[in-house]
């Protein structure tokens, strides 16, 4: 394993009951500084892979390493350096935004001064500061997504994992999130996210993997993969060929 590798997925497979494999022999590496896009159709296996990476979903085949630690055998070490933002964040609806953020900051042992600074910085960026004292149940989907994003950034993770992060975000928030992702990578972290929006992936990512029916059908740097074509064209061709 290269010392710059932050996420390494080796031959990971997952099947549900007697159904087809949701993920089939998936392997990929995300290095420090990478913004890695994970693209595929609905039901292709993106969320199944992402949920296994963040230690939510159990799996038997393959290995997933985060910062050199195994998700299977050292889940806590992995989670301490990872942050996860699901596609539809189920937060505690009866807490206020600030109560929820404090909860996550407490879990990661973030000092009061440090968390105040982070929360203020990101809440201002997402223009949600004024709403932090309200109950999460009163938030719109986009506002919940913003709180989930802030909670993920509080502990400055080495690996940020996002499942369809741009769904429900307004254009300004989408732009802000992209800026944050770039900033994190410049500081040596890595971002691994799934998306349907190929334009975003093309502009934002330096690496991509295309998954179809649980299998990786193409992966590599953006330049290698597209070879001068658009990502949309490459995706459709890869999808057709497989």
């Amino acid at each position, binding site marked *: 394993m290269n010392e710059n590798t932050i996420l390494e997925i080796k031959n990971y497979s997952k099947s549900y009951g007697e159904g087809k494999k949701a993920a089939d022999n998936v392997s990929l590496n995300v290095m420090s500084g990478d913004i890695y896009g994970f693209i595929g159709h609905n039901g292709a296996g993106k969320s199944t892979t992402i949920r296994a990476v963040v230690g939510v979903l159990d799996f038997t085949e393959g290995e997933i390493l985060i910062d050199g630690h195994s998700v299977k055998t050292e889940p806590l070490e992995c989670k301490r350096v990872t942050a996860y933002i699901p596609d539809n964040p189920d937060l505690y609806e009866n*807490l206020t935004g600030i109560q929820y953020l404090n*909860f996550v900051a407490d879990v990661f042992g973030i000092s009061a001064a440090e968390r105040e600074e982070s929360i203020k910085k990101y809440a201002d960026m997402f223009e949600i500061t004024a709403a932090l004292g309200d109950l999460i149940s009163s938030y719109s989907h986009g506002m919940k997504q913003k709180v989930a994003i802030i909670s993920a950034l509080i502990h400055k993770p080495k690996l940020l994992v996002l499942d369809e992060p741009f769904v429900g975000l307004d254009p300004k928030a989408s732009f802000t999130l992209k800026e944050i992702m770039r900033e994190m990578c410049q500081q040596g972290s890595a971002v691994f996210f799934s998306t349907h929006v190929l334009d975003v992936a093309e502009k934002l990512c330096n690496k991509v993997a295309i998954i179809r029916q649980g299998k990786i059908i193409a992966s590599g740097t953006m330049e290698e993969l597209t070879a001068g074509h658009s990502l949309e064209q490459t995706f459709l061709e890869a999808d057709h060929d497989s």
Partner: protein
Amino acid sequence: MTANSILLLKTLLLSTSQRNIYRHTTDKKKRTKIIWGYIGQACIYAMLVGYAIAMCVGYGKLGMIDAAPVLCALIISALAFIFTLFQTNGYLFNFKEYDMLMSLPFESKTVAGCKFLYMYIKSLPWYISISLAMMIGYGIFAHPSVIVYPLWMVLSLFIPVIPMLISSFIGFLIARISAGFRKTNIVQTVLTMIFVIFCFSLRFIIEDMFRNDKVEATLESISEITENAGRIYLPAGWFANAVRKPDLLSALLLIGVSVLLFAAVFTVVGKSYRNINSALKSHAAARNFKMSTQKQRSVEEAIAFKEFKRLTGSTTYMVNGGMGVILAALLGIITLIFGFDKIVMTVTQNAPFDPAVLRPAIPLILYFFIGMMATTACSPSLEGKNYWILQSLPIEMKTVYRGKMLFNMLLTVPFMTFSTLCMCISAHVPLADSVLYLIMGFALCAFSTAWGCVCGIRHMRLDWENEVEVIKQGAAVTVYLLPNLFVTMALIGLTIFLGTRMDHKLLTLILILITAVLAALSYRKAMTLAKREK
């Protein structure tokens, strides 16, 4: 407990705290609802305290006050055991925020342990109410030394722990077994129901074991059964020993075993926690659907079908919504096999009366089980965040609720009919009376459905965190269930009494008429409330 466990537990409690919502909401309607909720809860606690004190006074007057501590421990243990079994799936497993919690650096056993402690703290006020009320009753009649009171209070905190742990562990085993099947929900529901039915029948088996002389006086028998149960279920015995003598060793034994068992259970549960939840939250995808002929349904039928899928999609809902009808059907079958008279004698412990006097109460006895839960009481709240789907449909809300009512009728009427027929055949009820009992059963189902719908709409709560909150603890279900339960019990007594003094047919006709009027009024009310919904 680690700092992280305390933090998680505090957050879990805060996240469902009505006080927190009250402090931060600007919605006046919501605030009023919370205050009424507190008042309602206080009334139920007061009723419980009154009942427990009255029971102790009864024991005291009959000179059996020594049995009160064992009885107290047994009542709390039984309640804790059963309630936990109904709640394990939903609180310990299969909860909504699983992904969010498990992606944070918590150990699996910490999450599982905190979820258990959350369940324990939430239900503690009920058990403490019973325990403290019985302590007062015991104090009045037994005049124990002063040390008994603090000891009783401290030990009250530990009485529910062991039964809750046993129940959680059984829930864990059921979830573990179910996780190996494709239809996890169905398997989990069936196993839970089998276990609950086994627990209900266990009472009679134990009583039978203890009773050597079947014609013993009932009171003596109750006292003896209580004492013997205390000897079999050791924690109840430890509690009784600790407060009667008072004996510190027994007290330490109860506390020590509770703590050690907690650690042991959650070490084991923690090991397979992720595996079980992965299986419970995942759904097999065969992806082999081929378009075939589809069926068109009426709007009400379509909603009823949706309700059916909602029921079968959740173990918690299926166990709570289906338990009553299953118990009624079982009662019918058992009565048919063993005979009406024998079952009556077993349940009443050979009380000296003619079982035939119970005949006019057959529909009400069955309704006691079937009316335990109306899906219409919780289904409006269960819509939760999906409520917008119904609101955005081009149909009146009245139609939506008619669909919900149709489903409850389809669920209850066949079971009511089947069980009534079984009992009528077994009790040799004349044909004309049997027909009237069937009509009475239908009227009762209609009333339960419509009244449940009134409670469901009036006390609808869409912002729940966990479906257990609306299925088991929701205001709608409580307002529906408690009066229904007490009125049914009173009506059973009244019907038996009147049945000895007047013609059974006439009595049943009067009851049918009253029930039908109440059902019609409830239906009208439900429709009025539904009209205001949109």
